[in-house]
């Protein structure tokens, strides 16, 4: 289990997190990131970590 937080002020709406971890992240109508599951585990957690790594705006934090 890992806690996920996002900095919407940094988000640029590239949606890479939505593609990498669709169970954890989504976009609101304006295109900015929203968190669907802020405490993912297993595969979803791994996917969330990938999303953190590829987010071009470095807007995702995984708190271990």
């Amino acid at each position: 289990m890992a806690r996920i937080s996002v900095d919407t002020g940094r988000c640029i709406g590239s949606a890479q997190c939505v593609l990498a971890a669709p169970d954890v992240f989504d976009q609101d109508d304006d295109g900015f990131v929203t968190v669907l599951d802020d405490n993912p585990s297993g595969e979803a957690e791994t996917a969330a970590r990938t999303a953190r790594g590829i987010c071009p705006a470095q807007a995702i934090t995984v708190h271990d």
Partner: protein
Amino acid sequence: MTTDDAAGLVPFMMRRPGAPFPPPEYSEFRDRPGLVKAALPSGETVWLVTRHEEVRAVLTDPRISSNPTHEGFPRPSRTVGAPSADDVPGWFVSLDPPDHNRFRKALIPEFTVRRIRSLRPAVEEIVDRAIDQMLAKGTTAELVEDFSLTVPSLVISSLLGVPKVDRDFFEEKTKVLVTLTSTDEERDKASEHLLRYINRLITIKSKRPGDDLISRLMKGGLLTPQELSGVSMLLLIAGHETTANNISLGVVTLLQQKQWIDDDRAIEELLRYHSVADLVALRVAIEDVEIGGQLVRAGEGIVPLVAGANHDPEMFERPHEFDPSRSATGHVAFGYGVHQCLGQNLVRLEMDVAYRGLFGRIPALEVAVPLEELQFKYDGVLFGLHALPVRW
């Protein structure tokens, strides 16, 4: 590799008559400590960045700017790749945060995953029609002209609400803009024609709005009409030849490796492998900054080479092999940082629909000339193919 002995400078850009890509010199650059100092044809010097980690660092560092009005911004030729937002209001790729933010905010609702998915049937129809026309002509085609340029051109035109009858005009003008061998006069003229046309289109849509991006942005009111014309032109150019090059190169690569046709994972690896927009991200340091142990002074130009980063063996094992079974996630084919390609999910969709259409409907599709005779684009800012003769 040749170097200018007197100054120890590498001449840039690399020009070669054929494959492979990226330039073999990049691998040697990656092995050097620090960064590589290179001379542009203009005589200006720039720092080349070829390692994945450092390319990402350059593209996210607030001390490094995308604004070509700063002293020392790289200019491969007078105009290539980088008008400023002073020259063309709305040319937001040339703005740094916070000026950049308003444009990105206005545009991201148009490119969300949901919005792009909803475009699939429209893209399928465009692809199907392009294939119908190819098949109707016989058993051969020039795929770049007949398909790869046609599809993104129609997609971006329909997104913007540009009437289809005007698409030949756009193809011709954008080609002039992105070809390095165009003269400055030719480039200026093409750019003028495009802007004039788009301004007319905006005037028309202000009176009769449609279901298109231009009309919605106008309604949103975040951008002035003048900025909207710059934004429209930028989207049109950005969404056109880049996608076309990706489609064409992908056809060649997939035909060589047939087991990956119809495999979802292939798209990401194709993007990494070809890295068509190698030279698009030009930057300048606006403060002294250290990159990979190299001190870069304020006012010095930087060229982060995305093909270099995407073929960095530290990040991707056996980088010169096309291998969709690897996870190519983390490639920087669309750049990185706040300027990462806005239309990247549209490009993925277009590539996917294009390959499904081509290989699904024309199973006998093959390249009609020996691979070594293919004319690769080494004379442009974008890597691609000038022509791709095919038969079935």
